[in-house]
């Protein structure tokens, strides 16, 4: 027979809802093919693991939670961009360099050249998203793999990040940002603690500790919810809604699933890809802003290896490296796993270099799991 191994047209021929050749798929299997599965399992696993290992180390009191939440939120911000780009079928290896570049750019415009901080921030967003657009245009025009194009920008951006402050200021760390950003409305968007009253109240009822001495004696040790966490949540929610609920989101899946097929039905493939590169750059710049205003300084070596950490979080979150499949919520769970493990090893007093071993191992597991899930979805054997 000329059956090509596709199981032939069983449903077509029988035409009834109860086709004997379609196996019943239970709820479990439906769950198995959700992209978030790996992330959910991983989150449960790391919480159980550190609950046992570091339960009494302060990791799960208010301060400890705030600690790993912030680290996770950082990962989430860049994972959102990387996830949507990966679903569109591309990578961006220049994210880490972009973070360093954006930080230095804010410091150069805002401190060294004395522009108002909000102007410096807007200029930086424009430049970085412009670089993202250049990445995208080169990829869609030349048809080169984004891997190689953005690898080039990894070096180009990092080079400029060191060269510019070195030439102008003769140093690669620029401080004084806190003073320059004093009272600036846009800087406040990246560096304010929200809902301080909540923590004052929590301190009153004894859930959160207070400082016992120093100038802030009596104040709660947590002054509010950092904008970092707010940004992470907002980006994850917007990313998730855009990807799953909107027309543009459908195009992102289509472009990553099969660019040619998408083109034939009129999806503007090139535009979608370029916008995704710009989104990734946007997320990297948000990351840089939060970091710069928190530290009060910019340094040329910031963000190294962040591109890979973002990609790993996305892959743990169930996205396929080949594009066309993935979940922003999954990527956020991947980022949470990251944050919890990185800080958890610290709380558990384990040598922190083991974090990298963990990263490598979990990456491998995630990719193998994803490949298996893809086979289930597409019915490949």
């Amino acid at each position, binding site marked *: 027979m000329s*059956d090509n191994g596709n199981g*032939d047209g069983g449903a077509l021929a029988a035409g009834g809802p109860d086709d004997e050749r379609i196996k019943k798929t239970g709820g479990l299997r439906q769950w198995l093919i959700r992209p978030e599965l790996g992330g959910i399992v991983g989150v449960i696993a790391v919480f159980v693991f550190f609950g046992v290992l570091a339960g009494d180390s302060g990791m799960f009191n208010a301060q400890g939670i705030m600690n790993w939440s912030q680290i996770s939120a950082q990962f989430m911000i860049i994972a959102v961009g990387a996830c949507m780009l990966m679903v569109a079928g591309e990578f961006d290896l220049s994210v880490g360099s972009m973070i360093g570049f954006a930080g230095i750019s804010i410091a150069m415009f805002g401190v060294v050249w004395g522009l108002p901080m909000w102007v410096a921030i807007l200029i930086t967003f424009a430049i970085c998203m412009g670089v993202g657009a250049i990445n995208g245009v080169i990829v869609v025009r030349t048809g080169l793999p984004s891997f190689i194009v953005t690898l080039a920008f990894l070096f180009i951006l990092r080079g400029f990040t060191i060269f510019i402050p070195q030439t102008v200021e003769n140093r690669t760390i620029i401080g004084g940002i806190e003073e320059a950003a004093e009272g600036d409305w846009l800087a406040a968007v990246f560096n304010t603690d929200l809902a301080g009253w909540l923590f004052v109240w929590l301190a009153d009822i004894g859930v959160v500790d207070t400082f016992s001495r120093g100038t802030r004696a009596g104040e709660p040790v947590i002054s509010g919810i950092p904008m970092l966490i707010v940004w992470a949540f907002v980006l994850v929610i917007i990313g998730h809604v855009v990807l799953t609920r*909107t027309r543009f989101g459908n195009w992102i899946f289509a472009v990553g699933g099969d660019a040619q*097929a998408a083109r*034939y039905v009129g999806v503007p493939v090139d535009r979608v890809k370029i916008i995704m590169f710009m989104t990734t750059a946007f997320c990297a710049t948000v990351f840089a802003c939060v970091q710069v205003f928190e530290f009060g300084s910019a340094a040329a070596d910031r963000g190294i290896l962040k591109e890979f950490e973002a990609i790993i979080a996305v892959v743990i979150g169930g996205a396929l490296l080949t594009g066309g499949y993935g979940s922003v919520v999954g990527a956020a769970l991947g980022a949470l796993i990251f944050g919890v493990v990185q800080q958890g090893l610290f709380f558990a007093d384990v040598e922190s270099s083991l974090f990298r071993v963990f990263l490598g191992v979990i990456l491998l597991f995630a990719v193998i799991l994803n490949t298996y899930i893809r086979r289930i979805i597409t019915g490949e054997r």
Partner: protein
Amino acid sequence: MADPIVHMENITKHFGPVIALNGVSFDVKAGECHCLLGDNGAGKSTFIKTMSGVHKPTSGEIMFEGQKMNFASPRDAMEAGIATVYQDLAMIPLMSVTRNFWMGREPKKGFFIDFDKANSTTMSEMKKMGINLRSPDQAVGTLSGGERQTVAIARAVYFGAKVLILDEPTSALGVRQTSNVLATVDRVRKSGIGVVFITHNVRHAMAVGDRFTVLNRGKTLGTAARGEITPEELQDLMAGGQEMAQLEGSLGGTV
């Protein structure tokens, strides 16, 4: 008989020094299935890509419902009512049937896709084509090759195609899937859509074709209506006559 929906007159297409099409004339009327036959390299693909707006002809005229047309992109041709279903590029396996069905023309409710409408329309349109989906969320990858072709055809019909171009829809399919796709072609034709059916399989063409045009080395060798030509004659025309006859003799008429 009715005027043709699409009439292609003396189309030529050059790619640099290569002459892919060298004077091809072809038309398709409402409610007929016009088969375009030819061996590999005869220019079938180039020709349908010209018809569907992917390529611009070097010379020649494309008339659509009596008007001269100049398609700049596949989108233009689609909007005029020429839909093309490509053999392996029809569907994206990782995406659901609904998402594939509406790709590029998603129904909106405010900012968001109207999934209620999208899902129910997909289910009912697929039912019309004789496919009962388990769920509209089912990934296209879980469908068989024939079913995927049918989803693509249903999509084209739903979005108001007047001419449906099918690029070798049966060449990768098993026997039963093929007959299902051919039955779908018949159903589409009866609804008044003009079908252009590209194939190099004479038996598949004979099963549904009203007229047959053979393409060889970038030229049309002529058009014959059903009943005017035998499968053997078609086969000979496609292969360039002479050699095929000899080969067929040595293989004992099995080709």
